[in-house]
């Protein structure tokens, strides 16, 4: 259940929303970059050594 944040509800909630959003975006960007580079490397390695 949501705690009673009183008159500072806007400040507390906005601090959590902004921070968690930034963390999620950072994680997603890092994960996405990792997947893209990994796939491209795999493709180039396959091109160099089609049997390997």
């Amino acid at each position, binding site marked *: *259940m949501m*705690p*009673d*944040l*009183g*008159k*500072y*509800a806007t*400040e*507390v909630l*906005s*601090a*959590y929303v*902004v*921070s968690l959003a*930034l*963390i999620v975006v*950072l*994680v997603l960007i*890092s*994960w996405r*970059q*990792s997947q893209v*580079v*990994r796939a*491209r*490397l795999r493709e*180039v*390695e396959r*091109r*160099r050594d089609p049997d390997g």
Partner: protein
Amino acid sequence: MSSMWEYANPKRFMQLSGTVLPWVSGLAALCLIVGLYWGFFLTPDDFRQGSTVKIIYLHVPSALMAINAWIMMLVTSLVWLIRRHHVSALAARAAAPVGATFTVIALATGAIWGQPMWGTWWVWDPRLTSFLILFLFYLGYIALWEAVEDPDTAADLTSVLCLVGSVFALMSRYAVLFWNQGLHQGATLSLDKEENISDVFYFPLLVSIAGFVLLFVALVLLRTRTEIRARRLRALIARERMA
């Protein structure tokens, strides 16, 4: 016993980090969820700050890691300058966006907390100002890596920038002690029981700090692995073009 320098070998680093990364990521998620849930839902309001005290579970760990990320970059930059290990230069590069994001979180949550408590979003207080300069150093560091084409030259130049920026990283931590002025209070955590915050806030804060530390480690490992792969990719493409 194997030397730590063995992990400067990209292959060894990839092996070790591949094993460790899922565990660190899982632990980071667990500590963050527990720490933030505990802090947000299960702790009481402070008698002076009211419910804004709940912002410390984000502000203190992010500020701590914003500075420590730069210190980690300083150490890896020095390793690059002295021993020329590519993995250390790439680890510093990988850590910069993570540190910059933590700096933004610390600045944003500080401003959001400051408005009701100090009556202002921002003051040119020594700690806040040195923290803002640290953020600008992060941006400059990231931009410099992007701007220089040759990776070794980029690593050299960014390492020197990192050394200079370390002054502001240290200043943002110790500014309150250097200048006895400004609005920002002293350290939230202290070994002195009298000065330390109450246990009811302290324990969830420790779990939250552990979550931020582990999140930083997990992201730096993930991003360093990406940088190592990207470096190999560039080398293979260059070889293909020459052939």
